[in-house]
């Protein structure tokens, strides 16, 4: 058993986008703030901070999760992926990211990192989704610009492309 005292900072270690990483956190620090303020990884956005808007969605141990509904100390030893881990190399977009650009699936871009992380995971587990399934998955995200139509189109297009190429 370990007891981490309220007033002190404690070392947290986990895997972030396939790289081991560590930083210090008080027990009350949210994973969103740990990523952004401690590690400087500002790709994960903070919207409502109570799990409703989906902007902070990341992947924890292979499943999509709200970073704002997670304490940094809870991910000790976990595998975390953020939007910074999506692009295969600098200057090159993933299939899903590229589909977002071609379909104009974002305007202000605030909700985009969370939606990308959700859909990236969804398309890996559901290679042949229909529109209803994509929309149901998107129900966990708020976008106030697009009306979602372009996001759905991008997701379905990316799914088709991923089936052709066989990888992300």
């Amino acid at each position, binding site marked *: 058993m370990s007891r*981490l005292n*309220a007033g002190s900072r404690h070392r947290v270690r986990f895997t972030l986008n396939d790289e081991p990483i560590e930083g210090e956190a008080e027990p*009350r620090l949210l994973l969103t*703030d740990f990523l952004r303020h401690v590690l400087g990884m500002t790709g994960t956005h903070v919207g409502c901070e109570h799990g409703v808007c*989906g902007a902070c969605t990341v992947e924890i141990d292979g499943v999509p999760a709200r970073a704002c509904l*997670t*304490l940094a100390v*809870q991910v000790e030893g976990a595998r975390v992926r953020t939007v910074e881990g999506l692009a295969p190399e600098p200057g090159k977009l993933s299939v899903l990211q590229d589909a977002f650009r071609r379909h104009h699936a974002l305007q202000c871009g605030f909700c985009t990192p969370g939606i990308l992380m959700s859909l990236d995971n969804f398309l890996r587990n559901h290679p042949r989704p229909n529109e209803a399934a994509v929309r*149901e998955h998107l129900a966990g995200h708020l976008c106030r610009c697009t009306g979602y139509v372009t996001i759905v189109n991008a997701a379905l297009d990316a799914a088709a492309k991923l089936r052709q190429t066989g990888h992300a």
Partner: protein
Amino acid sequence: MKPAAFDYIRAETLAEVHAALAAEGGRARVIAGGQTLLPMLSMRLARPDVVVDIMRLPELGGISLEDASIRVGAAVRQAELLAWPPLAEQQPLLAAVLPWVGHAQTRSRGTVCGSIAHADPSAELPLALLALGGTVELSSKRRRRNVVAADFFTGLMTTARVDDELIDAVRFPCRQKGHGYAFREFGRRHGDFAIVACAAIIHDGGVTFAVAGVADRPVARDYPALEDGALDDALDALAWELEARDDLHASARFRRDLVRRMGRETIDEARRCRA
């Protein structure tokens, strides 16, 4: 919105959890998936001195079939139960209810027992546990005990669990031959909290009907096999009995109407599903 400061205990054994809860009592909160506790911490509706993380205890994981029930351990996430292959065969009501619990992005972390522990009056899992006549397994340093769902939910987000107790598991009775099960929910958007949710179980003695989202806790009633008119009268009486209130999301009158109409639809669907 940031949580107030608290100590964090990463427990590795049940004895450690029991000791921490015995020592801290009401100053401690258990965290499992955290999908309800974190918003409460961030909004400072909960300000515990100590948060006890139970997710590293292997004995709290696992879904098993025991005594004609599905036993779901405290560390089992909602998505895990939804993906459990025998679920629809063993308990169709649970299979119908789970896709309505939060969103995919919260079911991935939120636990079944956590939802039961929180006892939100509009939550689907407490409704299912009550409708099915399930059981909550509690343990503490002092004792182990099982509490039936009808005695567990005691009021608005209030349960029979006392401060030093941990919910080890919940048990949902398996489907019974010849019974029919149905669930319906009305909300503004899929994934929102239910404005009204209904569960119905048809059996030889009649129907067990349960409602969430109206009273301060889920409420279940047993009706004998009634004629259609008498059934509608019973649902109307129940709609008034639940003392619905107006709030931001819906009027009391609308809620009563949902109990009458959606309630009847749920019962009719359960009749059709009777196998």
